[in-house]
């Protein structure tokens, strides 16, 4: 559990950080909370000659709603999300998830930027971003926005280029009659998900589903967006039959692998059970029934 040698650079501004990243190219890696990166280095699953620490970079730590968009700075710690009234009252899908991420120690350090940029399908927040239809803002030589649905390319592989830093997460503020929920099953405190489902939906005037987003955690090599299931829901009344069918469709999209958390069969079944549970809760929170 001892990492290979690396040089440590502390950036004081975003430009500093970008310069360092440019200088060292793919030998460099951004260090935010370090809760995923450091274990990987210690296990020598990865090694980088240069770490660029962005913890002192100002202006990346905020949670605010502006013009119909929730903006979260990439360096916002999970603990800050956990304590945020805005998140608790307006974004229950995140409020469900955050306390289930790791343990308090990890949440004090871990950032939302690191969680979504890590590219690990076991992270909880990517599936939530998919359900919410979030956009990630990245800064390299210029600034660009990447929809969450186009961000995840493979295991630990994302749309971020080596010289880029994720600076902000933008989430469309849910209109009235919206509800979201995150249902996660884990073996014990501090464990990643056996399976988990993120659901965000909006009900129309007649009570039928107007928009739905469903994301699954640990259900494949990347976070899984259950597009078919979400589409299926649109225009339907959120009754038990519809929920059951959508859950089945979502589970069909999952392709988990067997490990100590369960067999493939078990995990697929859990994706179904948890999607159904998250759907029910989301509907309830949207004021459906």
């Amino acid at each position, binding site marked *: *559990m*001892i990492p*290979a*040698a690396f040089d440590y650079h502390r950036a004081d501004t975003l430009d500093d950080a970008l310069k360092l990243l440019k200088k060292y190219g793919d030998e460099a890696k951004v260090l935010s909370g370090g809760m995923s990166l450091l274990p990987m280095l210690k*296990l*020598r699953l990865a090694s980088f000659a240069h770490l660029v620490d962005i913890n002192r970079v100002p202006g990346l730590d905020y949670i605010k709603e502006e013009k119909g968009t929730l903006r979260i700075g990439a360096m916002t710690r999970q603990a800050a999300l956990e304590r945020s009234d805005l998140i608790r009252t307006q974004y229950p899908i995140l409020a469900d998830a955050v306390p289930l991420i790791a*343990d308090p120690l990890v949440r004090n350090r871990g950032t939302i930027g690191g969680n979504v940029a890590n590219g690990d399908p076991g992270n909880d927040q990517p599936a939530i971003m998919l359900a919410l239809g979030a956009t990630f803002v990245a800064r390299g030589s210029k600034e660009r926005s990447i929809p969450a649905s186009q961000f995840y390319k493979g295991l630990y592989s994302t749309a971020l280029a080596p010289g880029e830093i994720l600076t902000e997460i933008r989430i469309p503020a849910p209109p009235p009659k919206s509800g979201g929920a995150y249902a996660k*099953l884990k*073996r*014990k*405190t*501090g*464990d990643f998900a*056996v399976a988990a489902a993120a659901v965000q939906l909006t009900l129309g005037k007649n009570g039928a589903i107007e928009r739905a987003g469903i994301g699954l955690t640990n259900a494949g090599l990347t976070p899984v967006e259950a597009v078919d299931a979400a589409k299926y829901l649109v225009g339907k009344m959120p009754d*038990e039959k519809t929920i*059951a069918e959508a859950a*089945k469709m979502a589970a069909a999209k999952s392709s988990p692998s*067997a*490990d*100590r*958390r*369960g*067999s493939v*069969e*078990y995990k697929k*079944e*859990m994706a*179904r*059970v*948890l999607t*159904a*549970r998250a759907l029910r809760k989301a509907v309830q929170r949207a004021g459906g029934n």
Partner: protein
Amino acid sequence: MSEPRTDAKICGMGHSMKRKEDPRFIRGQGRYIDDFTLPGMLYMDIVRSPHAHARIKKINTARALKIPGVLAVIDGPTLAKYNLHWMPTISADTQMVLPIDEVMYQAQEVCAVIATERYIAADGVDAVEVEYEPLPVMVDPHKSLAPGAPVLRKDKEGKKDNLAFHWQAGDKADAERALAASDVVISENVYLPRIHVASMETCGCIADFDTAQGKLTVYMTTQAPHAVRTVFALVAGHVGLSEEKIRIVSPDIGGGFGGKVPVYPGYVIAVAASVVIGKPIKWIEDRMENLQADSFARDYHMKVELGAKRDGTMTSLKIKTVADHGYANASANPSKFPTGLFSICTGSYDLKHAFCEVDAAYTHKPPGGVAYRCSFRVTEAVHAIERATDALAQKLNMDPAELRMKNFIKPEQFPYKSVLGWEYDSGNYGVALKKAMDIIGYDALRREQAEKRKKGDLMGIGISSFTEIVGAGPSRDFDILGIKMFDSAEIRVHPTGKAIARFGTKSQGQGHETTYAQIVAEELGIPAAHVQVEEGDTDTAPYGLGTYASRSTPTSGAACALAARKIRDKAKKIAAHLLEVSEQDLDWEPGKFFVKGAPQMAKTIQECAFAAYTNHPQGMEAGLEAVHYYDPPNLTFPFGSYICVVDIDRGTGDVKVRRFVAVDDCGNIINPMIVEGQIHGGLTQGIGPALYEEISYDDEGNISGGSFLDYYVPTALETPHWETDKTTTPSPHHPFGAKGVGESATVGAPPAIANAVVRKSASGRIRVATAMTTTMRTIERPAGEPV
């Protein structure tokens, strides 16, 4: 014993004295191996095999040796020059220290890098290039034992199969006859998965060979320092190490649980390296090495058959076990008992016919298994009989509590000779179960369960009424590598009436510094606060076999009381001399002798101690000290009844322990708070394997459960609120009626959980199976059901 006989100032037995060791532990002032730094110390790190079975074609060290600070790479051929590449296991099997040509399990030591810094050693490990030729892997113990299986231990001349050993107890024909004559017979396959002690501190050592004195000091994480010294002397005698020139120091230990009984290859390599290089060498495992390569526990595949009359009277028990030992039998068991005390498997029940046998198999896995807080395979035995008892209750449609009550050995039957050969010293099982039932509100819970079942909700109630067998052991039967399993105490009372006491055991968190001091306080009236307890340094402590299998109180604790009594006898002579009366005229109360009928004429133990050095009677030896080596006449038999209630999520199979009541009986108690702590810890280590922990291997022998990422040790949040209580049935043969309690809860808890969770349905499928019964969770409900 109910009320303490001593006051709070003396703090003898029965006082919940705060632990004397805790101030230093709580303040981070404990001294563990990794806290030690010696001048000139070098660091060792180990290259481990990625393959479960492979031929080593080449070890290329050139790149490693180029790293500044890497001094040497030690491999099998290096050790072979000193004939140190193989070593005996505690079970008198053999195990590689470093391989010459073949590796036999994933994470096996291949070679070791010695460097000037810990980090450089790790870089050196990374730079060593080993070429392997992968070979076929045997992971299944049943296949390994099948006729025609390829022989794993080709190093053993003439070995034609993979049977590590066969062991049996009881009369097979008789047990089978009785089974055949039974009205009902149940047959259960019970698998206790491979688990790991996962102690907070991993293993490690500093081997320090002093070239000037020719003396080897090894600071190491060992539960049995004296035994290790003797083993080192026997194994390394040919390279000039002789027992008086070996000192083993076991400092503070962060949990042992049996995992720090064996001698691991890392220790031996470090010792060899220090002797050759002449400098201290530090080796500390990381967590993954600890989980993957150190001795595992359990891994018993048991087929249990239990017969009964229609009225529920148990008639006969038969257990056939296939035990997976990995590539070497490195069990930590007494020589005569290769499966430990497994033949306690008739449990708390008056069974007249029984037979059990164990076939131990070699596989391509790490060697083991250690007695993980299980009193030598008692966890396995208890699990077998307690699971079978519940299966029988289900088959008979009888309440499992009632079935137990009916079959318990009755109080008047003690001392009770079991059909498999043990003499249970004492017990009162029905009272303990009744108490547990009353506390938890058993009848109301059964009513609630019936209601819930009607609605399809899953609620389980599980009982375990276990009998432990601890305190090994009487020298006629018990030895490890020939050394008898007595244990020792040495007490010296100083002139000012304070004392130092040393023991052959070694605390790893059990609180010996407190409990032994309380025994001295009880026997001599010297306040426990004035008794300094030391263990773990073989240059100073009396010889003993160490701490495991709940043996410290039954053996060294007894030795402590008897050594103290020798001191009291001498102090009495001194008191008589000081008071100018005859010894017969004196009476004792804790702390002082007084003249019968004239209590104002008294001498305190402190006054006697002072006189022992300043004014002792002519003709008497000066000083006030004693040593005792205690050879117990029998084992002790703690017991208890545990009941738990679980709620199971029908959708996910997730099990929540709603309540857990533990009624324990460990005889007379030295420190009630410490006993409660032992039970809390043991219960937590009981639910661990029942619900979370398991190590398994795929067909290529790749480990899963080899890091804390997937070896699920329960945290405080998974741990239910333990409700504990006790009954007191003193051991009739132990000097102060104590029995040992370190492992009762780990032994008793798993079947309580399993009995609450596992239930055969009419279709024969198991309702909810967790790690305890299959490797993965399964839920008995049609997949796709709305949940």
